[in-house]
């Protein structure tokens, strides 16, 4: 059995690499973009808010799987062609930005108005206020919700296998189909558990660090 594991492990690890790439780049892009969308959603300029609401509604209201298929198999019909990996990233970033946007909107709205006024009478600009006072407070507020989405993303990344990307799940599935054994799927499960465990620990560490102030 050990021998068999050694034999399929390289394929699984290479799949894990793809899973991590999707995970990593989606987070790197969609957290800051989500913060911007959240900031947009609290503006007084109504057309912007409507536009963003429609975007959030579309992204949250349709399956991520549909969005992936749409980007990779659908858009080429309109002449927009993505490579598999780019298609996956594009769909994931668009989707996760919407979720993060809603989370950040809630975060921005829970910063008391008095904080903005206090910054204003100290003559801080809107940008300075957002960067130095609002974002740090929002970050702390949204951290648990962001954590949920981060864990979800680890698992959601397995959806890329529908557009033929060789991620962790696909690697396990291929091995199981070929060798008619459950072992690869169990290993896949263990690797996902390990990945989410690492995420959980890192998130806990960040939360702890944020607890120096209340």
């Amino acid at each position, binding site marked *: 059995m050990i021998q068999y594991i050694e034999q399929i492990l390289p394929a699984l690890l290479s799949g894990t690499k793809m899973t991590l790439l999707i995970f990593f780049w989606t987070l790197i892009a969609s957290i800051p973009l989500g913060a911007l969308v959240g900031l947009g959603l609290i503006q007084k300029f109504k057309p912007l808010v409507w536009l963003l609401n429609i975007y959030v509604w579309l992204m949250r209201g349709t399956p991520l799987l549909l969005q992936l298929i749409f980007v990779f198999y659908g858009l080429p019909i309109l002449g927009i062609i993505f490579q598999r990996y780019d298609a996956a990233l594009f769909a994931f970033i668009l989707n996760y930005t919407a979720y993060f946007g809603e989370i950040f909107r809630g975060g921005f709205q829970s910063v*008391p108005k*008095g*904080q903005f*006024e*206090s*910054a*204003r*009478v*100290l*003559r*801080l*600009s809107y940008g*300075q206020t957002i960067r*130095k*006072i609002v974002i*740090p*407070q929002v970050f*702390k507020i949204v951290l648990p919700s962001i954590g949920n989405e981060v864990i979800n993303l680890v698992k959601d990344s397995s959806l890329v296998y529908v557009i033929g990307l060789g991620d962790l799940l696909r690697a396990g599935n291929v091995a199981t189909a070929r060798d008619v054994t459950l072992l690869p799927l169990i290993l896949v499960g263990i690797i996902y558990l390990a990945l989410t465990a690492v995420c959980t620990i890192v998130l806990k560490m960040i939360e702890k660090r944020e607890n*120096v*102030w*209340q």
Partner: protein
Amino acid sequence: MLEIKDLTKKFGTKTVIDDLSMTVKDNEIMAIVGPSGAGKTTLLRCITGLESVNQGQFFWNGTQFDPTNTDQKETIIGVVFQDYQLFPNLTVMGNITLAPTMVKKLPLAEVQKTARELLARLGLEGKEDLYPFQLSGGQKQRVAIVRALAMNPKILCYDEPTSALDPALRDEVAEIILGLKKQQMTQIVVTHDMDFAQNVADEIKRVEQID
């Protein structure tokens, strides 16, 4: 000297301040008193630029200024809010140095030196690295005062400075305000507390509810 001329403030059709004029002389303490709902806080919010006015002019030493404009060269008005509104994510020192370093672009070391002196003067030495949640109400208020002073305002305004404090601390605030007066700080105190107003103020401005 701060002069306010013909100030009118309406919320919708409701007039809260009607054609009010007042003058705050240098180094004096002006108390604004009146029953709740009379527009004391609204008046303060107009002076501090948090509300725009429907009508009226503000003059500092004869030069007109717009309190809502945050791009002025100097800080004319400093504010200590009723609930202090310290920034919870910053230490005491961070709260004080943020605006002077970011808005006035003063060197951090210089601002910190001034901050330490001000903190010591208000009995807050050793609290520099604490976060606001670790302070008592009275200490928060004093940090808010130091934070406002660090921007070197011409006038310091307080909104209901005694409302959240117990009686012993009330006298302490009076001492702080009178202490700042000795250092030539012009101050405006909005309060519903007549005794307190009479204790500290050189001049008392009454505002009444408009029907």
